[in-house]
C-alpha cells in the first residue's frame, strides 16, 4: 500500500512490525508506515475486494 503521508510503498507485513496501541475494541485497524510512522487506515475486506477488482480491470 501507499502511505498517505510520505507517499512511499510498503506491504502489510512490514506495517505489522509496529506494535499497536491496543486501545481499540476490535484490534488495531491501522497500518503504520515503516518510513514515517503515519497511521494509514486498513481497508476492510469488502472494500479491499472492490479495490482489487478495480485494479484488475485497469
Amino acid at each position, binding site marked *: 500500500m501507499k502511505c498517505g*503521508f510520505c*507517499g*512511499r510503498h510498503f506491504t502489510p*507485513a512490514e506495517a505489522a512490525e509496529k506494535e*499497536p496501541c491496543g*486501545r481499540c*475494541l476490535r484490534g488495531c485497524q491501522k497500518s503504520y508506515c515503516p518510513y514515517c510512522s503515519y497511521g494509514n*487506515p486498513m481497508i*476492510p475486506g469488502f472494500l479491499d475486494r472492490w479495490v482489487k477488482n478495480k485494479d484488475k480491470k485497469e
Partner: protein
Amino acid sequence: MASQNKAPKGDRKVILVGNPNVGKSVLFNALTGAYTVVSNYPGTSVAVARGHCEINGQRYEILDTPGMYSLLPITEEERVAREMLLLEDAHAVIHVLDARNIERMLPMTLQLIEAGLPVILLVNILDEAERSGMSIDIPLLQEKLGIPVVGGAMRSKRGLKEVRQAIAECGDDDLPSFGYSSDLEKDIAKVTDTLTGDYRLDLRALALLLLQKDDEILALVSDREGDNFEQVQQAAAETAFEHRFDLHLRISLERKRVCKGLLAETVRQPENRRLRFADRLSAWTTNPWTGFPLLILVLYFGIYQFVGKFGAGVLVNLCEGSLFENFLNPLAISLIDRFVPWYWLRELVVGEYGIFTLGVRYAVALVLPIVGTFFLTFSVIEDVGYFPRLAMLVDRVFKKIGLNGRAVIPMVLGFGCDTMATMVTRTLETVRERVLVTLLLALAIPCSAQLGVILGLLSGVPGALLVWTVCIVLIFLLVGFLSAQVLPGERPMFYMELPPMRLPQFHNVLVKTMTRMQWYFLEIFPLFIIASVLLWAGKMTGALEWLVRGMTPVMGMLGLPEEASAAFIFGFFRRDFGAAGLYDLQEAGLLTPVQLTVAAVTMTLFVPCIAQFLMMKKERGWKVSLGIFLFVTVLAFSVGWSLNIFLLFTGILS
C-alpha cells in the same frame, strides 16, 4: 576498493533494483520470459523472483529484488534487497528508475556506484516522460555518470535490446567517484582511515552507512575488524555525534547537489513548457508567505464550512432533529412505555441516559455525520499530498516550541484519535519532543468528533468560534514555548522528501473515508452504549448526582449552570461524548453565548479521555502522565475562569 566483479561460477547473476512501481518486474519478465521461480529469500519471508536468460551464448540468472528507496534499509524488504546486493556475486546490477521522477531517484544510483557495484542505469517509462514534453539526453547522462545508461520503456520492450547488450558488455570498468563537500569528505575519511578489513562494499559507502548508524553494517565491521573494531566504532561514533542534528540532512543534500549537477544539461523541458499547476501549488504551500493563507483557506472551507456548517449543522439537524427527535425517539418511547412496566428498564432504554435516547442517538445522529464529513475532508487533504507540505510549513513555527515538522504526524493523527497519536509520539527522535507532543495532544488537540461538534455549536454564535480558535492556538503556542524553555534536551533537524502533489482520486478518497467511518462507528458505538449504561447506573444509584454536586462549585467558578457538570463527566469517558453533551445543553437553551464559549474552550483543553490517559501512562510512565494530567486540568479550568471574567468584563459575545 573491493570490486563486486568476481569471476562467477556457472550462471552470471544480474540483480534488478529500484523503487517500487518503476517497472522492475516488467523488465524481469521481458528478460526471463515465462520460466521463473518465486521463493522466499533464505531466512526471511520476503519473496524473490529468479529467472534465467541467455545473451550471446552466456546464461544469466536474473534476480528481481523487492522495492527499495535507499541503501540504508528501513524495512525487511529493503534489508533483503541490500543483502542480495552485498552477498550475491553480481555480474551486473540494473538500477531501474522512472524517467518522470529521475531527480528524486538518481541519488540511489549514486549510492550504488559509491558501493562499488557494477551498475547499469535503466531510465524506464521514457515514453510517458517524452509525452509530457520531457527529454533526457541518455548519452550525455552516461558520460557524466560514467556507467552504462539505457533509456527505454519496458512495457513496449523499447530499450530491451540495449539492456541485454549492456549486461553482456558489463565488465571490470573503474567506477567514477562523486565528491561531496570538504567537511563531509573529511568526516568520511576519518572513518575510512581506520578500516583495515576486507570488504565487498566500497569503504566510502561503508563509512557513510556507519555514520548513519546502520546496525547490520556495524555488526559486519565488528566481525571483519577484530581488535581494530573499537577504533572504527569510536571514529564513527565521534563524527556522528558531532553532527547528530544534521548528518542525514547533509548527506541527503550533498547527493541532491551532485544529482542536480548531473541532470543540469541532461534533462530538458520544452522552452514553452509552463510549470504544472500542481508544482506551483506545491511551492506555494511550503512558502510561509503563501502557505499560511492557504492553510487558513483549507481550514475555512474544509473544516469550518464543510465539517462545521454542513456536517455539524445541516446533517446533524437532519439526523438528530428530524429523524431522532421527531420520529425515532417518540416511537421508541411510546413502544417502551406501552410494553415495559418496569421503571428501571424504561430508564435504561429510553430514559435521560438511555441506551437508545442517549447512546444510539449520540453515536448515529450526532457524531457520525460530523466524523463522516471530517474524514471526507481529511482523506481529500491526505490524497492531494498536503500533509507533508504542512509539516515543512510549520517546521519553523514548531522549532520555536522545541519541536520540528516531524511532530506534525502525531498532531495530524490526533485529530482522528488522540490515544493513537500519543502512541505514535514514540517515533519522535528525542525524549523532550515526545513529552512535549504528549502534553500538547492532551491539552490542545481535539479529536475529530469533539472538534466537529464544537465547530457546529460555535458557528451558530457570531464571534464565538473566533474566540475559541484564538484561545486554543494561543494556549498551544504559549504552553509549547514555555515547556520548551523548561524541558532540557536536543533539537534535531527535520527533512523529508515531498511526494508529488496531485488531484484527489475519487476512488482513493471514497475508500479511505468509508474505511475510517466504519472503523470509527464500530469503535465508538459499543463505547457509547457502555457509557450510557454507566450513566444510567450512576443515576439509579445516586452516584451521578453526587458527582454532579461535586462538580457544581467548579461549574459555578466558570459561570456555567450545574447541568454542565454532566457534559464534563461525559467528556472523561470520551471527548466526543462530552462535546455531544454540550450540544444537548445548547439545544435545551441552557447556555448563553459566553457560557457556551467558556464551556467549549474548557472542555477542549480539559483532561483527555480515559483511553488517552492510560496511553500516556504506558508511553511516558506514571510520573510524567500524572504531571500532565494535573497541569492540563488546572490550566483548563484556569483558562475557563479567566475567559469567563474577560468576556463578561469586556462585553464580547454578550
